[in-house]
């Protein structure tokens, strides 16, 4: 499978602290890959490093064969990465519609079709389209955050802990939506909720103390209780 995203020995710091000591992973076109690991392992920092929000000190980051190492976030985004951050990253003082419009690079037929697809995928957003984002529930905010990252013709979607703070019933519907999304978009998912990661991811990487320590097929991880206990504490 062709590589879409490649990270090789990525090292990054936040302030004086080294968070990533050497993360290496590959995501192929059309794949859904889950990054797993305990709290504080560096999963979120890795996604932020890919987006350029945390500077890469050493290592290589490539998207579709082109280096994105050290680039500014807005340029990385324009290369085709949709990012759904842990805290949703939506604008509370804007309406749902404005949140969509601000995310769109252009308002052509294809973009509007993608927006309509998102509104069909998350009907709650259609109902709340003219409402301010601050009035949305946690689940709706997550839907808006994912939906907003889908309106552009992105090559890959980076999703950071979509289940965080959400009720089980909402997580279930999010899992369904992410399974539907992965049928046409490459997805790199960071998730603590093992059930959701298993449902969405086809392959996995485990990060521990800022390093990639394990990788493989998700179905093998589901069977390997020892590995789960060692790195995920399940």
């Amino acid at each position, binding site marked *: 499978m062709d590589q879409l995203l490649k990270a090789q020995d990525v090292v990054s710091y936040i302030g004086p602290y080294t968070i990533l000591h050497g993360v290496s992973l590959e995501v192929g076109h059309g794949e859904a890959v889950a990054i797993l690991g305990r709290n504080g392992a560096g999963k979120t920092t890795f996604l932020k490093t890919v987006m350029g929000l945390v500077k890469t000190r050493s290592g290589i980051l490539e998207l579709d064969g082109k280096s994105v190492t050290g680039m500014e976030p807005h340029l990385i*985004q324009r290369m085709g990465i949709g990012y759904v951050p842990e805290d949703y990253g939506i604008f509370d003082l804007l309406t749902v519609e404005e949140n969509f419009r601000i995310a769109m690079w252009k308002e052509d037929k294809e973009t509007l079709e993608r927006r309509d697809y998102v509104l069909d995928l998350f009907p709650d957003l259609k109902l709340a389209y003219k409402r301010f984002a601050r009035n949305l529930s946690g689940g709706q905010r997550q839907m808006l955050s994912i939906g907003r990252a889908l309106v552009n013709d992105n090559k890959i979607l980076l999703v950071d802990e979509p289940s965080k703070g959400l009720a089980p019933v909402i997580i279930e519907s999010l899992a369904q939506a992410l399974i539907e999304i992965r049928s046409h978009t490459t997805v790199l998912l960071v998730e603590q909720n093992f059930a959701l990661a298993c449902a969405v991811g086809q392959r996995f990487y485990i990060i521990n103390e800022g390093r990639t320590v394990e990788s493989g097929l998700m179905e093998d991880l589901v069977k390997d209780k020892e590995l789960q206990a060692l790195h995920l504490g399940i």
Partner: protein
Amino acid sequence: MDKLKAIGTINIRKTAALAALLALFLIIPHYMRNAQLIMFSRVFILAVYGMSYDILRGYTGFINLGQAIFFGSGVYLGVIFLNMQNNLGSFVLALGAVILFSAAGGFLLSRIVLRTGGVVAAAMVTLAIGEIVRNIAERWRSVTGGQDGLPLRFSRVALDPLFSTRVGGYYFSLAFMLVMLLILRAFILSPTGRVLMSIRENEQRARFLGYQTNRYKTIALIVSSIAAGLSGVFFAVIARFANTDYLSIQYTLNALLITLVGGTGTLYGAIIGSFFVTWIQTFLLDLNRSFPGFTLFRYPMLFVGSFYILLVMFMPSGIMGGIYRLADWYRSWKTKRVT
């Protein structure tokens, strides 16, 4: 049909209230003394100056302590151009010159301040630049007249009555404020304005959505500088005088106070703020004149300062913020009563 529906959704009560307010403002100058006409004209022009500050502080979260550079330059350019030739053409030329000057100045300022990290550093740098400009103006007496200033020499025959009579000046300032309110409102509601609002809310989020945020901050700084410069030119006509005080930190703080009192991020707040700031200063000075024996009234700034402290303590989001909070409270009270 859609158009009819759209018309149907216009808030009739709100439109009627605005129309009544406008009618009131159109009628009252005929019942005013010259001092009151001047005060209102200043209120309208300083409201635009306040709006220019609101574009920065309220919509991008950026604090420029050198805003008076553009206001003061506008006042100077207004006086200099009108002294060359006392007619409408000169006034239009002054407006053109101030737009060019403010756009270039705003752009240059953005190049400097956007290299500094954070709001406080940017505020300090703009404060320093403002003081440098004021110092240069004070020493460049041949052009600026230094602290003595430059009076605007009026030739009543040549100049349009809009400028030369106080009633004309009132309407002229009112029209300026309304036009600028519409222009700046359109700017805020434009896609660029929405990006600015998103930057204010969270710059990092705007960046990972693909926006080069510094470019948008530069646009905001240029628009704000132009609005401040234009208000300076109009102020020149009303004040009929220019000196280096208009370039000083005092006039930047005036803009800051106007947005603080009125409320930020609304544009309308600047109108209310301008009215209160101008009115309270005039009122307290009048008190001193009316009661010369009362010692406390000899120190009007004591009251002005106390008023601002109380306002920040009890209405941190300004008068407009207070009005919105009151409206929210009324709505929830009404809902509770119904249920």
